[in-house]
């Protein structure tokens, strides 16, 4: 098999990798904000439950979580797993896991904003929702760009974990081709793909950071 064919085969899984990547960001970031707010709730039981869930999600392997999400409905309820479930389980597993990480980042970001910001907004008559959306949230985004960038870079690499559910993304293809050829070359090619993907991610995050640097 020529290098070109190998690249074509691996690239055919790249769309699936992108799908996991973007869907995970799309679901986990808003979910992370909500979870962070729940985690900071003055209602202690809620805050404690969320703290416990976050702790488990961050303290156990993502691969294990993916398997649990995938087989859970079958073992728990005897539900027959459909073919689409591979993708859905992958997206659910990734989104929940990353939401836990983002929640902790967002919580730290919100708590790092001086309390005077909320107090000034309160005296000016902003509602709690207005204060969060107009004053706290934009400042939180700016403050959390560096740790969020780290997570996004990790996510690019973590998408390869979907192979445990045999979801056909780039890494799954690379492994199959590698096995068929008895060669490591396809894995190196996949490595280059991930690396370039992350270069692009870094550039994009850098742009966002620059765009937000109009204030300190």
């Amino acid at each position, binding site marked *: 098999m020529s290098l070109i064919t190998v690249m074509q085969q691996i690239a055919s899984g790249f769309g699936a990798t992108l799908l996991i990547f973007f869907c995970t960001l799309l679901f986990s970031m808003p979910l992370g904000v909500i979870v962070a707010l729940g985690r900071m709730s003055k209602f202690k039981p809620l805050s404690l439950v969320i703290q416990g869930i976050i702790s488990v999600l961050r303290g156990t392997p993502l691969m294990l979580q993916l398997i649990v999400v995938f087989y859970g409905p079958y073992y728990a309820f005897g539900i027959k797993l459909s073919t689409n479930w591979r993708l859905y389980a992958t997206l659910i597993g990734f989104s929940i896991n990353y939401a836990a990480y983002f929640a902790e980042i967002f919580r730290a970001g919100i708590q790092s904003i001086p309390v*005077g*910001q909320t107090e*000034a907004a309160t005296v000016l*008559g*902003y509602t709690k929702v207005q204060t969060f959306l107009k004053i706290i949230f934009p400042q939180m985004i*700016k403050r959390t760009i560096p740790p969020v960038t780290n997570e996004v870079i990790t996510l690019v690499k973590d998408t390869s974990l979907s192979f445990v559910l045999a979801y056909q993304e780039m890494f799954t293809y690379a492994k199959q081709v590698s096995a068929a050829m008895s060669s490591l070359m396809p894995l190196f090619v996949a490595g280059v793909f991930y690396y370039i993907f992350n270069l692009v991610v870094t550039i994009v995050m850098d742009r966002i950071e620059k765009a937000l640097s109009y*204030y*300190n």
Partner: protein
Amino acid sequence: MSLFEIKNVSKSFGDLKVLNDITVSVDKGEVVAIIGPSGSGKSTLLRCATMLETMDSGELIYHGEKAAANDAEGKAVYASNAELRKIKSYFGLVFQQFNLFPHYDVLKNLCDAPIHVQKRNKTEVVKEAMALIAKMGLEGKEHYYPQQLSGGQQQRVAIARALCMNPDILFFDEPTSALDPELTGEILKVIRQLAQEHMTMVIVTHEMAFARDVADRVIFMDGGYIVEEGRPEDVITNPTEERTKRFLARFAENG
């Protein structure tokens, strides 16, 4: 009827009683200065008045409208959110640390709340904000971000932001304490001008000469109590209470 009244406020943080049965009322056009050693409860009193802190017991009244009153057990109970929202529009607060919104430029710091909280007409608000910016000596700075301004300029923006809400009474919590000494003058000048325009103000300050000049009435607080209250020439120049004398003497020594 007084514009602002806070009656028999008590407030504790844990076991620490910070305000002991304090009563203050302010008439329209009056300028009241609050002085006292650090930790005496001055900020807590302003924070109770502006509802950043809830009173344990006491009454809070603006224009005769009760924001809070005691229940049968003597515990402060606050009015409904809708009523509190209305009452909040009667006052403004200028913080020691300015607390400007760093992601908004000067103009937006001034205009955002009038437009989105008070739902006023945008064109009018911008016009009024530009006039306030000029009045504060900040012409041409409307599109600067707070970080690009000196501390004194930031505090003038904060005063303008409070004024842009058209409050009936303005509270200041040590408005010059975070500033380098050479910058305090510009803030005091602005407050003095507001006093001449008969803006109702309550000012917590360590600037004794300024308090004597500008205030109609001075309140000396210590240990969560009002120790002495009266005309500035009495309280600052000829205090009767021993504690007031000691406080002022310490001040005179330190310059």
